[in-house]
């Protein structure tokens, strides 16, 4: 058993050391791989706010991941073809600026989460899972038939979007941006967990009737958690699209939503660094076992099974023990 803070520190150190080693050893592919880890961790960190603290098992978080991706895709596509995105009522141009794309992705994903949340939070349990899944499938099939932006084939963006003062085409620089954003999100999440809002949300997950009888509305607490969660996953989606310089309806697929849940379960539901450890394990398995067999998911399933049966707190729980009450 090790202290959870020490484990978190080690994971963070690993996320900094590994790419630096890769830079020194001239292994750019390892940097790309760790970038993938960081972006998936960010997407799952978003879901962790809804699922881990709020108890909202959303099987539709690919919606926000995809919205982030398509925000980047559509804006960059118009910028690279020099066509305006809209001419009425205002002229909206495309952009290749990452900060603008990020803010747009966050806002659009938050808006979608607000609408989906208002409709879905009337249900709970398995119905909530199903309704969020249904929204995910709606977006998936919509983008498949959205021929203006590539339909089923998706959209390729030829040059990675820019960030002031950096050359984002250099893998380590793009990685630095991603890991920076992950740090910011994890730090804000750790503040949020202990804040009055986090305390109330945490109680709303465990016992909504109690929260109501002290005069708070558990639905509103959960709705805001869902919106914040969607916004973070949306940001991750924009980064993911920029990593691959490609977006396709796959980002909206239910398998994507499922993967995010799997990441969190492997890492540790509700644990701050659960998504990070989950993403590391997931990408590592995908890389090594994927190289051995196309059917590597069998092993992933086996690991998932073992964790669900024997280590309910995920790997973070396995390594650090049960979480004490926040004092």
């Amino acid at each position: 058993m090790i202290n959870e803070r020490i484990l978190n520190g080690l994971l963070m150190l690993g996320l900094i050391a590994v790419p630096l080693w890769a830079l020194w050893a001239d292994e750019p592919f390892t940097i790309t791989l760790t970038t993938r880890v960081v972006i998936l961790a960010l997407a799952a960190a978003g879901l962790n706010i809804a699922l881990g603290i709020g108890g909202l098992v959303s099987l539709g978080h690919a919606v926000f991941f995809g919205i982030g991706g398509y925000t980047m895709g559509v804006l960059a596509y118009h910028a690279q073809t020099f066509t305006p995105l809209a001419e009425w009522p205002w002229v909206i141009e495309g952009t290749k600026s990452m900060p603008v794309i990020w803010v747009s992705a966050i806002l659009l994903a938050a808006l979608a989460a607000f609408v989906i949340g208002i409709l879905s939070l009337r249900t709970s349990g398995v119905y909530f899972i199903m309704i969020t899944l249904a929204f995910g499938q709606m977006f998936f099939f919509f983008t498949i038939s959205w021929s203006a932006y590539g339909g089923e084939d998706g959209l390729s963006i030829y040059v990675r979007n820019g960030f002031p003062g950096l050359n984002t085409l250099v893998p380590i620089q793009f990685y630095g941006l991603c890991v920076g954003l992950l740090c910011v999100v994890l730090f804000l999440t750790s503040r949020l967990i202990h804040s009055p809002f986090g305390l109330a949300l945490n109680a709303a997950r465990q016992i909504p009737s109690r929260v109501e009888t002290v005069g708070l509305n558990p639905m509103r607490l959960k709705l805001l958690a869902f919106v914040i969660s969607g916004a973070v996953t949306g940001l991750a989606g924009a980064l993911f699209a920029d990593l691959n310089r490609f977006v396709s309806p796959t980002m909206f697929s239910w398998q994507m939503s499922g993967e995010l849940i799997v990441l969190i379960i492997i890492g540790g539901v509700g644990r701050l660094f659960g998504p990070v450890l989950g993403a590391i394990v997931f990408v590592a398995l995908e890389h090594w076992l994927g190289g051995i067999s196309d059917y590597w998911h069998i092993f992933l399933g086996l690991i998932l099974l073992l964790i669900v049966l024997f280590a309910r707190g995920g790997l973070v729980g396995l390594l650090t023990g049960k979480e004490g009450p926040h004092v």
Partner: protein
Amino acid sequence: MSEAILKTERICKNFGALQACQDVSIDLRPGEIHAIIGPNGAGKSTLIAQICGSLRPTSGTVEFTGRDITDTGTAARARLGLGRTFQISALAMEDSVLQNAVLGALGASGHPWRFWRPALADKDLRMRAESALQRVGLVEQMHARCADLSHGQRRQLEVAVALTLAPKAFVMDEPMAGLGAGGSRTLTGFLDELRAEAPILLVEHDMDAVFALADRISVLVYGRIIATGSVDEIRRDPTVREAYLGEDP
């Protein structure tokens, strides 16, 4: 007698053909403990649910501090000053005792939309929570995980959370449930003093506690109030003895 703080006016609740609550009119006046007793299935929980807002009556009205709250939600009723304790402890079991009490204080403050400073570092919330824990005698255990508390301590915490709200009236659903004789006596003493602060509508099976505490008792049988009166009146009432106390008159 002064104006009632909490009042139901001929409320009825039907579940299909079942009339769980028929023409129930009760009131709660300042300074009193009004006990509701009745056999299992008499409709006590249904009545509480309508008073606290989780069920809406089929007909009739609920009034609190002079305003009609029949269509007001549970959370809004709590904000108006209706403090409730549950029959089965409704606490965040994974959280500490202090966190549960701070949740109550947070509800009372009405400002849960704060995202930066830790809730437990907030002086006002903390003071309010700790003074409530102090009053029920749980300050020593405040850092314990709620799931590790004994049953009796959970009942105490349940009351403490209601106290943080500084309510204008309490609705307590079997606060003595599952308490041993000692615990029951302590809580009885505590409720006895509490009534001066805010009146208590008390649903309770523990007859010793009811007879020791209540200023008035209402007897609910098959969804109807069959009698309301002082402890002595209820003890003597032949219909009550027949329906509830199970004795031949």
